[in-house]
């Protein structure tokens, strides 16, 4: 009995902690299909402001003098609108990831209750293969968990077929 009560108490505490996290300052960012827990500015409501450190962790983009960059890819920020993207409050510099998404024409789906933001394909990624007609590569597991990439089958004709159990 006592054990059950302790369990209930722990579960209640955990639930409270979780909802607290969803409300205040925690968010899950899904970027390129990978989810990362980040600290969201408590002032975030419509927009998602995250720290520069989390920007790099969640998206691999970093803010440089020439723009918001990842490897060779750089998106310059409009000079007169920098304050829409970057805000320094105290010791922390925040980055507005949703304003950046709008800038690069990236769809964002949000679940407010659970604090989850899914960042979809940026405009520059959409239809990227259309000029070459190259089949987009993917790497996925078979039933034994072994990974296979389409690119491994160069030199053969490939019939790609999708199906589903449903």
């Amino acid at each position, binding site marked *: 009995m006592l054990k059950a009560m302790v369990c209930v108490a722990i579960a209640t505490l955990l639930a409270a902690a979780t909802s607290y996290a969803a409300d205040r300052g925690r968010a*899950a960012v*899904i970027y390129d*299909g990978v*989810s990362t827990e980040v600290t969201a500015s408590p002032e975030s409501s419509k927009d998602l402001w995250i720290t520069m450190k989390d920007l790099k962790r969640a998206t691999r983009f970093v803010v440089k003098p020439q723009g918001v960059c990842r490897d060779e890819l750089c998106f310059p920020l409009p000079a007169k609108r920098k304050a829409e993207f970057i805000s320094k409050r105290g010791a922390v510099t925040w980055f507005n990831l949703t304003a950046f998404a709008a800038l690069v*024409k990236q*769809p*964002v*789906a*949000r*679940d407010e*209750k*659970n604090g*989850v933001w*899914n*960042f*979809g*394909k940026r405009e520059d990624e*959409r*239809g990227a293969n*259309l000029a*070459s*007609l*190259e*089949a*987009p590569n*993917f790497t*996925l*597991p*078979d*039933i034994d968990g072994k990974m*296979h990439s*389409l*690119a491994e*089958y*160069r*030199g*053969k*004709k*490939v*019939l*790609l*077929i*999708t*199906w*589903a*159990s*449903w």
Partner: protein
Amino acid sequence: MPGWQKFYHDLNGRNFEIISVAQDTGGAKDAAPWITAARPEYIALIDDKHLVTQLYGMVNVPTAVWINEKGIIVRPNEVAYVDNRYKAMHGVDAGPYLDAIRDWVTYGDRSRFVMGEQEVKELLKPPSPERAMADAEFGLAEYLHRNGKGEDAIAHFKEAQRLDPDNWNYKRQAWALSDAEKNYGTSFMKEVQKLNGKPYYAPRKLPQKQ
């Protein structure tokens, strides 16, 4: 799948590969029993994020793409039935398409079923902003579903369906993950009946012999 296994087995050793990809949010749990039963000699992969659907802009299953030895698309997305099991529902005879694949395996880029670059380009359009948004909503719904928030996922599955209304993958997958009648007020059969005999997934025309 057993149909494709036989088809593939008969073409074995012809420098031809089948890569089948299950579009299943439930992953191996849902797809593996079918793969185990069919024991395919070809490559059978599991895609629990509908990645291939999004990369190729697909809207239904089964959908096939022909990719040549250089990795170039020579016939984009089209319906690919391996037998006539569901012919009563969609009215498509599988035979001519299977013959077309055999012709391609034999003649390669000289096959009359291989499309020219311009023809493929006209068929392959970059995804519309609505489709891109639908993909994001669908991905969010899958994430919530996977993390035990199935109830919260429904609104986002519905939004994906609203944004990309011709996408049967996004409808059927969502319906399969919960009680479709209760949560979506419909079912696959009901939706097909609504089309009133119009094929819900029309095949591409295959060129005739000259």
